[in-house]
């Protein structure tokens, strides 16, 4: 099909000004599409800010330090302190669990597994990314949570003296810890995929040189792969963090949506920006909607910043490795 158009080009299409007009139209169309992408990113911020302002003006408490959430009462009292705390702590728990495992997976696929099976195993890990978050939530709520009771009880029994794990009520459901575990599973493929790509870029010469000098495989990884892949690992972790911060449904199903700052991560509690929006959306009045949009704006700004930093690190890495090869 394509050959025919090459050998028999439309005689009208290649003549003088009409060529240039066609090219110009096509160029402008494609550029307009590109500009539209930028416009959408900007429009998200602008519209969220515009619709958030009304509620912020009515808020009788400090938006950033208030923990409770009563935007539809008179006078409205609401703030994001508890939401921000829950979002960050849940994401951090997920990061602590996921980053080491994800780096292990990336190493396994890039430098330990044999070439023949590596791509298949990589595909298996990527499949985890294809599971919709609502299914993670359903599984986390009705399979993982009951099965984690014993484990959490064990942690509380032996490590309860650490304030973070204290749980005097001995109720082990709907906690930040469980949400963190589910989030960790969800961000594993994101982190390991980016890390894997960077690890595969390590120059073969460096690897062989270190092995020839008598390094064990682990020493090679420590002295060649990690230094080379460090920026990539950092940015992969930040991409995972961005995903963890913005995850909605799985977290909304697992956490018990409490509007207070509570450091005890094994107790029922916790709440996040995204989960709160999903849970409160249909019961919110006009001011409530505006308040939820305001919290969404904060989430958007945070994830945008995290993603931008991650991408900037990776972009610099690309230039470096390009110059190297």
């Amino acid at each position, binding site marked *: 099909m394509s050959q025919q158009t090459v050998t028999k080009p439309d005689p009208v299409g290649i003549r003088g000004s009409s060529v240039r007009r066609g090219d110009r139209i096509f160029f402008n169309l494609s550029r307009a599409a590109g500009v539209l992408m930028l416009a959408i990113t900007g429009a998200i911020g602008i519209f969220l800010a515009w619709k958030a302002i009304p509620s912020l003006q009515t808020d009788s408490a400090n938006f950033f330090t208030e923990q409770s959430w009563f935007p539809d009462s008179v006078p409205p009292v609401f703030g994001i302190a508890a939401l921000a705390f829950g979002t960050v702590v849940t994401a951090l728990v997920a990061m602590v669990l996921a980053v080491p*495992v994800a780096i292990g997976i990336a190493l396994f696929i890039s430098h330990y597994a044999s070439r023949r099976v590596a791509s298949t195993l990589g595909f298996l890990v990527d499949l*985890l990314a294809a599971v919709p978050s609502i299914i993670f939530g359903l599984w986390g709520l009705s399979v993982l949570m009951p099965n984690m009771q014993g484990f959490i009880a064990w942690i509380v029994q032996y490590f309860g003296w650490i304030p973070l794990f204290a749980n005097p009520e001995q109720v082990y459901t709907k906690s930040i810890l469980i949400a963190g575990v589910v989030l960790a599973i969800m961000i594993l493929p994101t982190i390991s995929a980016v890390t894997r790509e960077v690890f595969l870029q390590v120059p073969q010469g460096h690897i062989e040189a270190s092995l020839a000098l008598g390094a064990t495989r682990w020493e090679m990884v420590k002295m060649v792969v990690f230094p080379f892949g460090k920026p990539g690992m950092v940015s992969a972790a930040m991409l995972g963090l961005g995903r963890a911060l913005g995850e909605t449904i799985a977290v909304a199903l697992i956490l018990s949506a409490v509007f207070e700052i509570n450091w005890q991560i094994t107790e029922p509690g916790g709440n996040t920006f995204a989960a709160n929006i999903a849970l409160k959306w249909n019961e919110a009045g006009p001011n409530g909607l505006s308040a939820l949009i305001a919290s969404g704006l904060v989430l958007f700004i945070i994830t945008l910043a995290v993603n931008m930093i991650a991408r900037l690190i990776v972009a610099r890495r690309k230039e470096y490795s390009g110059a190297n090869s």
Partner: protein
Amino acid sequence: MSLTTNENRITTEELRELLAGRRLPKWAPWALAGGAIGISLLLLAVGVLGGVAQAAVSAGVLFLVGQAVWSFRIEGRRHATDRFATTLIYSAFVVAIVPLVAILFSVIQKGLEVLRPEFFTETMRNVSSRGTGGGILHALIGTIEQVLMATIIAVPIGVMVAIYLVEYGKGKLATTISFFVDVMTGVPSIVAGLFVFTGLILTFGLERSGFAASLALVILMLPVVVRTTEEMLKLVPKDLREASYALGVPKWRTITSIVLPTALSGIITGVMLAVARVAGETAPLLLTTFLTQSLNWDLFSGPQAALPTFIWDQISSGTDPSVNRAWGGALVLILFVALLYVGARIVAKIFAPKTR
């Protein structure tokens, strides 16, 4: 030195030991693994360990410690560390596969319980949350319509952006667009829903409908489509383009009739993967449509259900029959996504450019 002073000839075994140091025998890890599993099973049988999960963890720890100690005594610190790290790296992979298998197992096992033919042909209309029965027809229709509409809008725009970036993109504008496409991939799905709600529903009076949901999905699909299309366009050899220019074909005709057909299989694969990703999105749908239990063919008006929101609704009801229905919905959703993945692979094979 020792080689020459020693009167007896040395065996290859000893030579290797002199050069590379003493190593553990090849069967050592297998023997250790067998021993660790054996001891754990014994402890499980005696009743010291509470369950299979605990036995697995204990076997892992025994193996890790046993190997480290043995290796340290014979091979020294460096090799002991190496073996320790290798074991951890292998187990990291296992740790990732366990939840994948566990989730698929739960979804298939619990989903099959409610999966009858009627599950696909009935809606939830007039089905009480405490009663069994009902089906997902309304949700299935909603998901198909919404995802199809999102694809129809997102693909042309996304492909055009990719063309701009690959074929025309030079200078600041292209770099900026490329950067923000990457950043957009990380925008939380709920923010996409918020954007459609504030930008189109509140500001321009768009109805909360299946179409509004499609638009939210477009925001999530666009960056994925752009990225994958871009990768595919980059793979098209420069020679093809130059041959076409040399024949006097204008650039836009070269792109539409040479570059795009060559990259078609990759683009379709990428699009199907993007569809698979947004088909399971719940949060943006919750903000842009209303839930319903009835069938609604009209994408543009009235509340419309979708598979993810159906599952959400059934979990929220919390009764046993509705949670069972949620598992059924989850199985159908997974099958839907899996179908798209398999389809993507088949399409990639069929439309792949013939290599002589």
